[in-house]
């Protein structure tokens, strides 16, 4: 079974803090993705990566950065958290053979106060 794990299910941070969200997949997938999910807006792609040390901006990269030092791990970084970054964050991975068949983690609900 493909497994995508995220470091926390719930996280509460203060405005201005630096926040790290970690994602690990165990299927040796080349592709990894970070989305945020908000009511009425659906899933929106923040960043994705097709290989180690490689990253591409998605639709809403502002205020975020990412890091992929190892194939199995993809980190999302909020350099200075703001209240409008309160959201559900979802990580996903997929293989080159089936790039659009994404496997999602359970999500991290981040609250910035």
């Amino acid at each position, binding site marked *: 079974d493909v497994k*995508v794990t995220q470091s926390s299910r719930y996280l509460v941070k203060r405005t201005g803090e630096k926040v790290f969200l970690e994602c690990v997949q165990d299927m040796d997938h080349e592709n990894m*993705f970070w*989305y945020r999910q908000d009511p*009425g*807006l*659906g*899933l*929106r*792609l923040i960043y*994705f990566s097709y290989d180690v040390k490689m990253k591409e901006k*998605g*639709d809403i990269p502002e205020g975020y950065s990412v890091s992929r030092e190892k194939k199995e791990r993809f980190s999302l970084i909020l350099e200075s958290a703001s209240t409008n970054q309160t959201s559900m964050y*979802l990580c*996903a991975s997929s293989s080159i053979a089936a*790039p*659009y*068949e*994404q*496997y*999602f*983690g*359970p*999500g991290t609900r981040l609250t910035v106060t």
Partner: protein
Amino acid sequence: GESVGLHLPTLSVQEGDNSIINCAYSNSASDYFIWYKQESGKGPQFIIDIRSNMDKRQGQRVTVLLNKTVKHLSLQIAATQPGDSAVYFCAAANNLFFGTGTRLTVIP
């Protein structure tokens, strides 16, 4: 840019009935569409996909129909069960754009 949306934010069906969830898209260049199911408290789960050179694709209890003329696709669930209660998303794969989802509620 791409716009993918679902016709209804909510849908309620009786257990055992068939469900039809609709989705519209705007970009004719979209060549691949995917349906995901998201249960409460979980991440989305891949259900089925369809390429633009197909009109229909069937899976286990699910069928996806694609009408390129009107830029519309639908997900049909046969004999809907309580475990089918979830939010369903369609996505255009060429730009990973997800719609806002339809919440399907199955009434026992």
